[in-house]
């Protein structure tokens, strides 16, 4: 096969993208070489097993994907507001909404939250690192190569075009020939391995590595949300693994699971997909709830209201999330009884969610609200999310859903919950913990600009879409061919650009703050309002996290510690700390698996087998690897702590 056969040709926009990608790539190579940073890149980042660095890499990747998914969104909005331009044709539009959805859920929302969990959870429970640092690096690289594989599809081979739900039979070999859909399957499969491993890893970390005395019901609420999320990951992701594998086998090896021939059953895909897909929604929303709880309590300067209820409501939501998947296809004709059952179970989720909303409001009662940027994101979440929540209940009413389904009403709903929930939380969490990660805060003024632009842009973009849906505009329509729909679409596009502008200001703020923000001098960055252990250690966080781990027997332990003048450096109690060694194995192993996946995408079996053998070889090496890490000597800990604390 010649190289020109696999490159996407004939689309000026894609040529432009190719050129700009090539330029950015060359620029990166040049910078790394010119400043002699290759060794630094390898030894500090690519081989790291430090949860904080891995978290930073997750977040950087997620921001990059937010950009890519956002550009997809802008292109769609331009096309819908100016249908006469002939900007995108049907095929191109289909590819764009498919990659937009997949990227935003799988390669933006999840890694963003997992990145925050990576950095914060071990710090919140007083742990040295993850339970399995090596596995954590493995998870990241599997996500990374999955993401890379998915993203190269639009220049090599062609993007998937069957929607992020990839419904069969449309996505099967007969109706979607070529590598596009394989990119979707292999990209998700590869990154899914990492997600599952992270789920297990974090669960063991939280269950086994908490500070002495810290019971489960003493844990910070973000850690709780992580634990519950991990349960969902462990029980939901294998379903996706199987679904993807079956469709891959269908497409590449000619099996008949979801085909129209051989008595296959295409509608089984929808079931399997949503049995994972609905819990997935809660995988990205529960950590968001956790972040909001932390931020609101901190800047209300008040204990979280109803801590136990908050925890239990998350557990109930997690359980219910496995019992509602049919509501994604009420219109499949399962009959009135089945639809009734799933309708009621769906609406029931509103009860624990509502309880959480009221608890946040009650946390604000008799508090001292300080309007910092993370607090603005968190506060904005409440009214915005309510709009998404109530329309969610409306969608849950199956009989009415027959009218809402597949329409812009649905689009508006899930963007209202996913953006106002997950994306707002990502921004809130990032700004909130930014000083912990990088040693300086983000600029507040620019942060507020970014917030207000994004916030208003968001409402202007998505609120009109409810009404487009009620006027019968279906989702995934590549052209606004009905004049009646045009005005609201134009408004929506204006809003989308507002969000884009907000994002640009946010990114500029990263640069601006790096240049001009004051460096942190204490670990307790937000005017001494920190409540949980992550604020108790110094900033920047030493690689071993805590010199000594305090005894914890309550929620918000750092408040008591500050009252009693205790720190995480009790000089007489310092012992050598066991640390894992850095290793390049995870990177190499996953690079091989990435290569194998790439081979499978194009059905080049030799490449696939070669990659698999390489990966197996790396696993065998790992099995014989008895590297037990090293100990940080007491002297070094004391020296580091004294310097950081100015003692």
């Amino acid at each position, binding site marked *: 096969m010649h190289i020109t056969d696999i490159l996407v040709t004939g689309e000026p926009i894609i040529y432009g993208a190719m050129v700009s990608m090539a330029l950015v790539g060359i620029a990166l190579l040049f910078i790394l070489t010119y400043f002699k940073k290759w060794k630094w890149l390898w030894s500090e980042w690519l081989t790291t097993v430090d949860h904080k660095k891995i978290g930073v890499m997750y977040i950087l990747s997620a921001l990059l994907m937010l950009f890519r998914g956002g550009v997809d969104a802008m292109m769609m909005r331009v096309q819908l507001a100016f249908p006469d331009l002939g900007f995108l044709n049907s095929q191109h539009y289909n590819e764009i909404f498919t990659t937009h959805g997949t990227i935003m859920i799988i390669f933006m929302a999840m890694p963003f939250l997992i990145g925050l969990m990576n950095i914060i959870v071990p710090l919140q429970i007083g742990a*040295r690192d993850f339970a399995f640092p090596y596995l954590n690096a493995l998870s990241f690289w599997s996500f990374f190569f999955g993401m890379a594989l998915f993203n190269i599809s639009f220049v090599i081979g062609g993007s998937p075009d069957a929607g992020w739900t990839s419904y069969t039979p449309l996505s099967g070999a007969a109706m979607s020939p070529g590598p596009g859909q394989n990119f979707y399957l292999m990209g998700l499969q590869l990154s899914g391995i990492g997600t599952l491993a992270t*789920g297990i890893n974090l669960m063991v970390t939280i269950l086994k590595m908490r500070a002495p005395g810290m019971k489960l019901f003493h844990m910070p609420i973000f850690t709780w949300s992580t634990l519950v999320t991990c349960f969902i990951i462990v029980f939901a*992701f294998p379903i996706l693994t199987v679904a993807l594998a079956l469709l891959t086998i269908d497409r590449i090896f000619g*099996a008949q699971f979801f085909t129209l021939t051989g*008595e296959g059953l295409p509608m089984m895909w929808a079931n*399997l997909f949503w049995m994972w897909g609905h819990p997935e929604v809660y995988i990205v929303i529960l950590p968001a709830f956790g972040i909001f709880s932390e931020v609101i309590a901190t800047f209300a300067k008040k204990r979280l209201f109803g801590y136990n209820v908050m925890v239990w409501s998350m557990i109930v939501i997690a359980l219910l999330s496995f019992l509602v998947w049919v509501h994604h296809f009420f219109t499949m004709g399962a009959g009135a009884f089945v639809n009734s059952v799933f309708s009621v179970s769906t609406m029931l989720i509103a009860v624990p969610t509502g309880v959480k909303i009221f608890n946040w409001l009650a946390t604000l009662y008799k508090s001292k609200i300080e309007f910092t940027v993370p607090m603005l994101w968190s506060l904005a979440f409440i009214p915005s999310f309510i709009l998404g929540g109530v329309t969610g209940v409306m969608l849950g009413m199956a009989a009415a859903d027959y009218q809402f389904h597949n329409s812009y009403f649905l689009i508006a709903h899930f963007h209202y919950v996913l953006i106002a929930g997950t994306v707002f939380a990502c921004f809130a969490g990032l700004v909130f913990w930014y000083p912990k990660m990088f040693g300086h805060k983000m600029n507040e003024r620019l942060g507020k600009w970014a917030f207000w632009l994004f916030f208003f842009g968001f409402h202007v973009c998505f609120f009109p879409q409810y009404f487009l849906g009620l006027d019968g505009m279906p989702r995934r329509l590549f052209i606004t061919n009905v004049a009646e729909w045009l005005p609201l679409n134009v408004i929506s596009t204006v809003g989308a650009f507002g969000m884009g502008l907000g994002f640009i200001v946010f990114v500029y703020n990263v640069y601006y703050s790096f240049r001009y923000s004051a460096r942190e001098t204490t670990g307790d960055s937000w005017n001494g309002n920190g409540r949980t252990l992550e604020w108790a250690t110094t900033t920047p966080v030493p690689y071993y996290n805590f010199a000594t781990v305090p005894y914890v027997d309550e929620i918000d332990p750092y408040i008591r510690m500050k009252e009693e003048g205790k720190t995480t450096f009790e000089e007489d109690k310092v012992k050598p700390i066991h640390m894992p060694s850095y290793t390049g194995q995870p990177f190499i192993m996953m690079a091989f698996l990435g290569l194998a996946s790439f081979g499978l995408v194009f059905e080049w079996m030799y490449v696939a087998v070669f990659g698999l053998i390489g990966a197996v070889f790396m696993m065998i090496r790992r099995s014989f690897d008895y590297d037990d890490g090293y100990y940080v000597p007491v002297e070094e800990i004391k020296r580091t702590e004294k310097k950081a604390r100015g003692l």
Partner: protein
Amino acid sequence: MAAEELKTGPLEYRTQEGQMGIMGFWIFLGAEVVLFATLFATYAVLFGRTADAPLPSELFEPGIVLVMTFLLLTSSFTCGLAIHEMRRGSVKGLILWMVITLALGLGFLGFEIYEFVHYAHEGATIQSSAFWSAFFILAGTHGLHVTLGIGWAILLLIQIKQRGLTNVTSRKFFIISLYWHFLDVIWIFIFTSVYLIGMVI
């Protein structure tokens, strides 16, 4: 943390690393249960969708499946004996029983491969119908797990030869025994809900 090592109790549980490894593996098995449950559900849903291919009742033979079941059940027992020997501190016993376990596992695999080839000759392949796709993937995923288990156990046998019984090697053997028993349990479900039901209907 690794510094704190218990002096009593099974070797594999004495360090926190050991405890965490075993707990992580239990959770992983939980995920595996979901994986196989999904495959079983798929199989159940596609049951009867044989299209033009032969029916399962025409192909499934009780004899060979019974032999396979016997082999795998026995191997689970010998695997248990291996761990028993390990707890007694006997490297020799551990190796002996583990090798027997692997031999039985290989026997199982041999019969499974023979069976698959035989079905393919009779016109039932992964491509012939939805039912046969589901059958081959369900039984095949189990078979693949057994294969990986055998390869993995061989690696561990080399390591125990090199290093003897330590916190780490005992943990690794304990974990693979969990894995092996788990595969046994899955097989019992395959035996009853795939073969027995398939032969009757």
